[in-house]
Structure formats: C-alpha cells, structure tokens
C-alpha cells in the first residue's frame, strides 16, 4: 500500500492563540476507508479543511498523490472531493446544474453522460431537473455527495456524514461509501460515534485537542474497546479476596464491599458464569451487580495519561 495523503507536522493556530492542530502526522493509504474519530472540537474539521485548502496551516506540509497542497495546489485539489458537514445548496438552482458547476469548477470538461450515471448511482435521476429547495434532507445530502464526486476524485472527504441523519439514510450512506471503495476511491470520514467508525472504516485515527492519539486497524482498536468490567457489590465488606476465588482475576474495592472483574466482552468465554457460581459457592451475599464498558472517553483518558 502506498500512502495517497501524507500529513507532516501540520499546525494550525488562530490569531486568538488557540491551537486547533498541534503538529499532526498522518499517512492515509490508497484505497482505504479511514475514520477520524474524536469528540466535538477535537480538530477533525480543521484537519480536513486544511488538507482541502479552505483553511490555511501555520506550519507543516501536506501532499496528496505526491502533490504538495501549496506549491502544486491544482494537481492536489483536482484529486480531492469534499462533502462538508453543513448542507449548502442554492435553493433555486436545479440539481443537474449544481453538479455541472462543481465538475467545471474542478477543471473537468462537461460530460452529461457521466453526470447522468452519477445521479443514477445516487438515486437522484428522477430529480435531475428539480430545484434544490424541493428536495428532502436525505436527497440534499446525496446532492452534496454528487457534487463532490462530479470531477471523479481519487480521495473523498466526508465530514460527519451521518450527523442528524436517520437510520435508513445512514445505511444508505454506508452503501454509497462501500461502493466507492470498490471503485478504488480513498475515503476519509469524520465521526464522533465509535460504532460508526467500527461499521465502516478499515482504520481509525483517534484525534483529540488537535493531536492524533493513535492510528490503528479497526479490529485491533475494537478489541481494546471491548474491555468490560463487572462489579459485584457485597452485603458485608471483606478484608481480602477469598482464597476460593483466587482463580479469577479479581480486585477488591478500597471499602471492601466491591469485587471488580475485568474481561473481554467480545470473547466467547468471558468467565462471568464461573465467577458467579464460585461466589455463590463461597457463600458471599450479593447486594448488587453492575457492568461497565470502557468508553471512547476512557481510551482518551488512558492515552493522555500514557503521554504524561
């Protein structure tokens, strides 16, 4: 795999002194779907905007397909399609014209047949000559995608593609994305939902406070995400974990009333059943039980702790 986008030491500081990007390094491989995962305000949109040329970087470099985004911006930008988070369509313009405009803007000669095919692929053929304001929210989003794809980009950026989108449309969006990947388009999408990244991405880059915390294969990251904790509250406090339960990796809470058991929630055998049987056999009266799944936030906290 060769990297189609190489981000090196990218910084973006605003006049106020706020640093939205603090030296981002990222390699995106050709043909992959990569999710930029992070909370609101993490710098996801700033990163995308900077790569696409909408916002200027303070330091660092980005190349797209080997073309520097500043010195060789024409070649770099011609390879990119961008679907921003906000829908912004001229209400009185027709869909066909809206898409034609985008194609021309990115330097491609008119090609009606291609635009027809694109609209068909996005189930917009029937609305070709309708005005943008007549469309439903889902259709408007698809028009935004059609615009971004009109000049046959090699790289597609989708900024929060499913924010405020219903379940059905979300599935539809994923079908479109998978179809594009089959055609060899590299896709970068941002999201703050871990489930979303898991469902679609080959790799996940976690970003927080303007820094990339990790880039991992989705499967590897999900295995870490799968950590669960079972906490068993006892009616009477203990001084130590009883001998009969030593086979299980248990820790006792400071007040002696809680037994904490960590396990992989995705594993076939979690050991929870055996543990419960052993606790009953040990004659420990249980007051309450709760489980916790390690959240994205905890991974962040963990990563930030590791850094310090």
């Amino acid at each position: 795999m060769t990297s189609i986008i190489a981000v090196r030491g990218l910084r973006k500081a605003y006049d106020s002194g706020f640093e939205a990007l603090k030296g981002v390094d990222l390699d995106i491989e050709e043909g992959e779907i990569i999710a930029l995962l992070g909370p609101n305000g993490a710098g996801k949109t700033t990163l995308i905007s900077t790569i696409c040329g909408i916002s200027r970087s303070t330091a660092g470099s980005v190349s797209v397909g080997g073309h520097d985004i500043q010195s060789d911006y024409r070649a770099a930008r011609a390879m990119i399609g961008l679907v921003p988070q906000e829908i912004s369509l001229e209400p009185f313009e027709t869909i066909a014209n809206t898409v034609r405009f985008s194609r021309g803007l990115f330097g491609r000669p008119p090609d009606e047949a291609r635009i027809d095919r694109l609209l068909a692929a996005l189930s917009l053929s029937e609305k070709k000559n309708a005005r943008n304001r007549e469309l439903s929210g889902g259709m408007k989003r698809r028009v935004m995608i059609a615009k971004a794809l009109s000049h046959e980009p090699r790289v597609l950026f989708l900024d929060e593609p499913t924010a405020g989108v219903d379940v059905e449309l979300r599935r539809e969006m994923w079908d479109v994305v998978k179809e594009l990947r089959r055609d060899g388009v590299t896709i970068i999408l941002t999201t703050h939902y871990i489930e979303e990244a898991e469902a679609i991405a080959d790799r996940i880059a976690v970003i927080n406070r303007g820094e990339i915390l990790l880039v991992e294969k989705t499967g590897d990251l999900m295995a870490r995400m799968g950590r669960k904790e079972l906490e068993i509250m006892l009616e009477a406090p203990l001084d130590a974990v009883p001998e009969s339960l030593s086979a299980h990796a248990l820790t006792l809470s400071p007040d002696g009333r809680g037994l904490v058991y960590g396990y992989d929630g995705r594993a076939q055998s979690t050991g929870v059943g055996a543990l419960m049987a052993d606790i009953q056999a040990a004659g420990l009266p249980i007051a309450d039980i709760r489980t916790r799944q390690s959240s994205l936030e905890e991974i962040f906290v963990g990563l930030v702790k590791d850094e310090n």
Partner: protein
Amino acid sequence: MSRPNLQAIRAIYLYEMGRFFRTILQSMLAPVISASLYFVVFGAAIGGRIDQVEGIAYGAFIVPGLIMLTVTTQATSNASIGIFFPKFLGSIYEVLSAPVNAFEIVIGYVGAAATKAFIVGLIILATAYLFIDLSIARPFAMILFLLLTCTSFALLGFIIGIWAANFEQLQLIPLLVITPLVFLGGTFYSTTMLPPFWQGLTLLNPMHYLISGFRWSFFEQADVPIALSLFAIAVFTVICLAAIWWIFRTGWRLRS
C-alpha cells in the same frame, strides 16, 4: 507550470449567467422601467421646456448619465450578490477548495456581472431611442466606455460582496455612495453650469470623469478631456484589482 483552469472560469460564468436568465424579468424590468421614467419625465415632458445644454437637447443630454447610473449600480449589485450569496449559503467552500486561482475566480464572477450590466445598459440605450431623438457620434468609443465601466464597477461589487457581512451592508455602498455620486457627477447638468467652488469640488468625484467621458462618445463634448476620463477609470480599476489581490493573498473574510 500549472495550466489555467479554463473550465472553472466557464463554469462560474455560465452558472452566474444562469441566475440572470432565470430571473430575466426582474433583472431587466426594474432598471428598464426606472430609466424609462427618467426619459419620459426629464426627457420628453420637462426636457422640452429646458434650454439646450451646450448645444444638446436636454432629453439627449441626460441619456449617457442615466445609462451610467444604471450600469454602475447593476454591475456593483450583480457582482456583490454573486459572491456574497455563496458566502451566505456556505457553498463558498467549494470555490475555495477547487483547483482555481484568484484570477480565475474573479474573471468568472466579475465577467458575468459585467456582462449582465452591459446587456442592461444596451437595453436602456435602446429604450432611450424610443423616447428621445438621439445619435451616437463615436459608437466604438461608447461601447468601450460602457465595457470598462461595467467591468470596473463589477470589480468594486466583488469587493463589497466579500466585505459585506449581511444583506444590509450589501446595499450600503450602492445606495449611499454610488447613486449620490452619479447624481452629483453631472448626470442632469453640465458642471460648467456650476459656481467655481462646486465645479472644483466635482473634480473630486470619480463619477464625473466617467459621465463626462461617456457623454463625449455620444456628442463629442465633455466637461473634462477624454484622456483624463480614461485615466480616471484606469486608476479606479487598478485600485479595485489591487484590493482584490490583497483579499486573496490574505484570505480576508474568505478563509479562516
């Protein structure tokens, strides 16, 4: 090293002209009606009772100034809306992320706005013929002046469109600056009719040079030498171009 993006210029130009033709009635009707009113009232009705101005019938005398009034406001407002609207909608992201340079963007937007104003100007001229006995001494010079005016005011409109933060500001300059300057620049009178002090003050009004030059192309008579008029419009164009160059270099009100 990089080839100009001619497709992008074409796309922006056609897209903007599309907006014009989609609203052709509003685009044409309003300026034509208001110009016709001037021609009827000042030209045909009152004009008959007014003495000639510098040997020209009053009705004919006011035609160049009225065309200037229309094309300057049209070029300015067309260009300002053309760039303000995508900014307002948010769709400007596409232009900013496209493989185009500032020059191509300006040719597309300003070219379309100037074309629209030029078309409106010619239609007003044709309307004038309906009401007023008119002949044009130097038609080529007239066309050239019209084109230059449309282009330079479209450049000004482009700057206003980028500067404006809301629709009110968009109207501010055309209403508060351009219209009064055109009125006071000698649309309805020859500045030689003014007392010396006001004559001197008029020389500070850039519109005065435009109207005088344009009127020269009709009647071969002008308040200021034609070369000075051309020089004035050249200076104005250069100032606008420099401002636009600075806007794109700094990303002022366009990029964060």
